[in-house]
């Protein structure tokens, strides 16, 4: 008589516990652009991100770009604030030092404003990338 083997029951695999790195890397990456990659030993990527995002933001400041503060007014101002906020430590430093408060007097200064917003938005992408590396979705 053959033994009947019990049907293999497939137990649900426990969800992968969120590693500490998946929290720390995005946080550090937001504060210092590229640092989320650097702490995961992606040195070249991290340094390139730091150089690119940092340069874009600093150039924006040097071009007399305007920095947005938290506000509840015009939708474009709110979007500008969200973009600037992405730059993390660069944005906080700029606000603390009271830089980027001048009135936009020429066309290139408006480019500077856009440079800083784009630097922040690019840092959001870099933060997401650091997270994907931390959870193993990207090498």
């Amino acid at each position, binding site marked *: 008589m053959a033994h009947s083997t019990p049907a293999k029951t497939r137990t649900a695999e426990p969800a992968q516990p969120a590693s500490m790195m998946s929290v720390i890397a995005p946080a550090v990456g937001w504060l210092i652009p590229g640092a989320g990659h650097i702490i995961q030993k992606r040195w070249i990527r991290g340094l390139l991100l730091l150089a*690119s995002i940092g340069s874009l933001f600093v150039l924006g400041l040097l071009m007399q770009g305007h920095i947005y503060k938290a506000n509840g007014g015009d939708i474009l101002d709110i979007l500008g604030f969200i973009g600037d906020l992405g730059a993390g430590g660069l944005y906080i430093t700029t606000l603390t030092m009271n830089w980027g408060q001048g009135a936009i007097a020429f066309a290139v200064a408006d480019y500077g404003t856009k440079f800083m917003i784009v630097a922040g938005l*690019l840092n959001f992408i870099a933060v997401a990338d650091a997270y994907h590396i931390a959870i193993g979705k990207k090498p």
Partner: protein
Amino acid sequence: MTIQLTHFSAAFVFALFTSIVFGITHRETTRDMLRYGLYCFAMFLGGILVAGWAMWLVRR
């Protein structure tokens, strides 16, 4: 300290740094990152030149 970039140099710098970040974050292997970064850079600069000439034609 302030700097005054020309319109083209501002666009060039923007294209350069943005392409680097796009290349790193949108592809997985080093080779693909480099290729995609160069592609983005070419598209940015190409778009700038095409738009510039289009505006020149419109003005005439």
